[in-house]
C-alpha cells in the first residue's frame, strides 16, 4: 500500500485539472461532487497507508526519481512515507474533505464558485505533496505553492481592498520566513551534497556537516535556526505572526482549512520532520521552545479583547501553534504532533462553526451577535465541543494533547515556559468562552440580523458534526488508556524526542485553571456580574495593549514597511538624480564641447590641410623616432 501513497496528492491534482478544464462557469453540483469524492478517495488511501505503515514499522520508505543534474550532483524528486507524514496525510485529507463539503453551502451563489474550488483543490494537492516530500527542495517547492494558494484564497474577494492588502501581506510576511528556509536548505545541500532528509540527518548525526567557512556544530545550529525561521513565517509565530489575523479576510472555509488545520501547521510539521537536525543542536531547540512559548502567551493575550469572531480564533490558532512549537522545543516531539492533530480537528471545527454563524448573520462582529443558540442549535453544540476541546477540559481532545505538552514542559525544566503556558491556558479558556457566550447566549444585539439567521443545510452541518465528534474523542488516540498509542506510532520513525509520563496533579491544575477562565467569561458575558467595560477601563493600558495587538502592525508598518519604502525612495532618488544625472551631465558636457569646437570648422579646406599635414608630420616623426637611426 505504501508504494501507492503517491495517489494521495494525485487525486486532488486530478480534481484541480478537471475543474480547470471545466472552466469558471461550471455547475456547482459537479464541482463540489468531483472535489469531495476525489478528496475522500484520497482520504481512504491515506487511511490505508496509515494502517499499512502502522502495522509494519519497516514500511517506512522513500521513492525517488532523477529530476535535475547540477554540477556533479543529482537532485531527485519523489515521495516517502513515514509514520509522521502518514498521520499528516490522514489529518489533511480528512479536514480537506469536510471543508470542501462545507464550502458548498458557504460559497453558494458566489459567481466565482468554480474558481474557489480550483484553488482549494490546488491547495490540497500542494499540502499533501508538501507532506509527502522526501527532500527539502521538494518540500520548499510545495511550501511556496501552499503559500501561493493561501495568497489566492485570502485575496479571493479581490475587489475588497482589505482582502487585496491581506493577501499581499500574508505572502510577503511568510516569504520573509521562507528566505530563511531557502538559505537553510541551500547550506544543508552544500554541506551534505543532497537535499534528502535522510542523507542530511545521517550526516548531522555523524557530525559530518561542514563547510569551509563555518564549523560543524555552528553550521547545524545555523541551518536549524534558518529552517525554523521558515517555520516561524508559515506557522505565524512571534515575530512573524502578523499576517495570520489579516488573512481572515479570506472566505471562512479557507480560514478553517489553510489558516487553522493544515498550512499553518506545516511549520510545525517542518520542525518535526527536521527534528534530527534540531536534536543535534540544543541551542536551536531552546530557540524553538522560547519562540513557541512567547507566541502561545502573546496570541492568547491578544485574543482576549478582539471583537471580530474570526480574529479571536485566528489569535487562538497562533497561540496553539505556539504550544506545538514549545512542545517540539522541549523535546516532546510526539506531543507536539499530537497537538497538531487534535488542534486540526477542533480548530477547523471552531472556524467552520464560526463560518456557519457568519453565514447566518452576515457579520463577524461579536457585539452584533447574541442569543443565536435558539436559531442555530447544531452550530451552538458543535462550537461548544470545539471550545471545550480548545480550553482543555476533560475529556475533550485538546485536554490530552495540551496537558501532555504542559507537563512535558515542566518536566524538562522550563519552568518559565510552563508558567507562560499556564497563563495562556487560562486566557484560552476565557477568550473562547467569551466568544461562545457573546455569540450564542443572551439577547440578540442586532435583531434584524438575528431574525434572518438559519442553519446552513446538511452540507454545512455534516462537517460540523464529524469534526465535533473528533474534537470530543480525538484525544483518545494518545492516552494512558490506550497505552499512548499515537506516541508509540510516531516514535517508530526513530529515536526522536523524549517521552514523559503523565502527571495527574498537573493535569488537575490545568483543568482548574481552564475552568477558572470559563468562569470568568461566564460572569462577564453570560450572567454579567461585572460589566466588561469597567474591567477594560480598569486595566486601561493593558486592555489597549491587547486590543491593539501589542502594536505590532503599527511598529512593523513604521519600521519595516516604512523603512523599505524610504529605502526604495532613496534608491530611486539616487537613480534619477545621481546616476542618471551624471549620465546626463556627461551628455551636456559633450554637447557644450561640441558647441565650442564647432568654430574650428572654418570651411577653409587649406586650413584643414595644414592641420592634417602637421598631424602627418608628427605621426611620422614619432614613428621614425621609435624606429630609430633616422635622427
Amino acid at each position, binding site marked *: 500500500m505504501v508504494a501507492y501513497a503517491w495517489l494521495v496528492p494525485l487525486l486532488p491534482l486530478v480534481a484541480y485539472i478537471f475543474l480547470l478544464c471545466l472552466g469558471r462557469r461550471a455547475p456547482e453540483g459537479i464541482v463540489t461532487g468531483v472535489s469531495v469524492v476525489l478528496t475522500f478517495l484520497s482520504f481512504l488511501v491515506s487511511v490505508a497507508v496509515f494502517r499499512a505503515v502502522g502495522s509494519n514499522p519497516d514500511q517506512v520508505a522513500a521513492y525517488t526519481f532523477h529530476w535535475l543534474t547540477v554540477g556533479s550532483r543529482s537532485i531527485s524528486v519523489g515521495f516517502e512515507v513515514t509514520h509522521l507524514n502518514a498521520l499528516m496525510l490522514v489529518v489533511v485529507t480528512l479536514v480537506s474533505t469536510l471543508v470542501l463539503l462545507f464550502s458548498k453551502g458557504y460559497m453558494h451563489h458566489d459567481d466565482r464558485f468554480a474558481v474557489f474550488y480550483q484553488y482549494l483543490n490546488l491547495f490540497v494537492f500542494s499540502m499533501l505533496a508538501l507532506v509527502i516530500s522526501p527532500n527539502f527542495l521538494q518540500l520548499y517547492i510545495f511550501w511556496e505553492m501552499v503559500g501561493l494558494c493561501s495568497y489566492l484564497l485570502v485575496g479571493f474577494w479581490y475587489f475588497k481592498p482589505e482582502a487585496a492588502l491581506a493577501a499581499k501581506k500574508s505572502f510577503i510576511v511568510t516569504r520573509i520566513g521562507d528566505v530563511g528556509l531557502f538559505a537553510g536548505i541551500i547550506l544543508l545541500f552544500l554541506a551534505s551534497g543532497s537535499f534528502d532528509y535522510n542523507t542530511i540527518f545521517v550526516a548531522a548525526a555523524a557530525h559530518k556537516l561542514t563547510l569551509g567557512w563555518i564549523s560543524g556544530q555552528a553550521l547545524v545550529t545555523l541551518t536549524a535556526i534558518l529552517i525554523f525561521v521558515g517555520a516561524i513565517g508559515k506557522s505565524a509565530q512571534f515575530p512573524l505572526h502578523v499576517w495570520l489575523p489579516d488573512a481572515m479576510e479570506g472566505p471562512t472555509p479557507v480560514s478553517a482549512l489553510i489558516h487553522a488545520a493544515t498550512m499553518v501547521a506545516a511549520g510545525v510539521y517542518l520542525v518535526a520532520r527536521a527534528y534530527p537536525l534540531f536534536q543535534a543542536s540544543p541551542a536551536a531547540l531552546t530557540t524553538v521552545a522560547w519562540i513557541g512559548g512567547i507566541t502561545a502567551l502573546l496570541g492568547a493575550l491578544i485574543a482576549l479583547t478582539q471583537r471580530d469572531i474570526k480574529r479571536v480564533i485566528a489569535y487562538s490558532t497562533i497561540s496553539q501553534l505556539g504550544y506545538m512549537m514549545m512542545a517540539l522545543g522541549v523535546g516532546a516531539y510526539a506531543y507536539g504532533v499530537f497537538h497538531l492533530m487534535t488542534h486540526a480537528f477542533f480548530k477547523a471545527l471552531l472556524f467552520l462553526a464560526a463560518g456557519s454563524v457568519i453565514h447566518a448573520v452576515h457579520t463577524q462582529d461579536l457585539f452584533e451577535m447574541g442569543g443565536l443558540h435558539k436559531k442555530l442549535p447544531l452550530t451552538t453544540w458543535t462550537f461548544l465541543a470545539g471550545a471545550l476541546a480548545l480550553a482543555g477540559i476533560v475529556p475533550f481532545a485538546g485536554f490530552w494533547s495540551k496537558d501532555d505538552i504542559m507537563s512535558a514542559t515542566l518536566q524538562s525544566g522550563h519552568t518559565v515556559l510552563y508558567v507562560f503556558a499556564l497563563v495562556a491556558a487560562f486566557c484560552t479558556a476565557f477568550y473562547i468562552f467569551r466568544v461562545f457566550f457573546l455569540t450564542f447566549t443572551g439577547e440578540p444585539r442586532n435583531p434584524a440580523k438575528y431574525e434572518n439567521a438559519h442553519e446552513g443545510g446538511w452540507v454545512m452541518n455534516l462537517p460540523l458534526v464529524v469534526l465535533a465528534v473528533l474534537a470530543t474523542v480525538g484525544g483518545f488516540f494518545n492516552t494512558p488508556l490506550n497505552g499512548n498509542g499515537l506516541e508509540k506510532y510516531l516514535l517508530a520513525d526513530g529515536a526522536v524526542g523524549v517521552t514523559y509520563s503523565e502527571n495527574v496533579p498537573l493535569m488537575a491544575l490545568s483543568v482548574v485553571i481552564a475552568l477558572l477562565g470559563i468562569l470568568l467569561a461566564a460572569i462577564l458575558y453570560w450572567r454579567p456580574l461585572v460589566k466588561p467595560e469597567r474591567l477594560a477601563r480598569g486595566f486601561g493600558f493593558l486592555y489597549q495593549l491587547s486590543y491593539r495587538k501589542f502594536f505590532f502592525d503599527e511598529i512593523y508598518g513604521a519600521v519595516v514597511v516604512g523603512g523599505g519604502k524610504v529605502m526604495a525612495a532613496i534608491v530611486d532618488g539616487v537613480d534619477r538624480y545621481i546616476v542618471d544625472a551624471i549620465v546626463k551631465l556627461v551628455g551636456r558636457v559633450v554637447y557644450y564641447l561640441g558647441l565650442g569646437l*564647432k*568654430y574650428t*570648422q*572654418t*570651411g*577653409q*579646406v*587649406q586650413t584643414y*590641410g*595644414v592641420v592634417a*599635414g602637421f598631424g602627418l608630420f608628427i605621426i611620422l616623426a614619432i614613428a621614425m623616432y621609435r624606429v630609430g637611426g633616422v635622427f
Partner: protein
Amino acid sequence: MAGGAPFPIPTGSVLALAAILFCIGLYGALTKRNLIIVLVSIELMLNAANINLVAFSKLSDKPSLNGQIFSLFTITVAAAEIAVGLALLLAIFRLRKTSEVKDLDVHKW
C-alpha cells in the same frame, strides 16, 4: 645579391627629388588662392609619387614592370580627376563668379 653593372643614378637621389617635389606641391596646395593652381599643385604631388613608382621599378633588388604599370594607372586616374575637377571648377565659377579657394566655405560651422 644584385648582379650586373651598378646603375649610375643613386636611389637616394631620385627619392630626394620626388620628396622635394612632393613638398613643393603640398606647399602650393595649402597656400595658393586660385583653385586651378591648387589642382595643379596636387598634380605635382601625384607626379612625385609617380617618380617613386618608376624609380623602384628599376632600382629595386627585384626589378619588375609593376611600378610602371601602377604609374600608368595613376596617370589615368589623375587625368580623370583633373577633368572632373576642372568641370566642377567651371560650374562653381559660373555659380559663384569666383575661382578662389577661400570663398568656397559653405561648410563653415
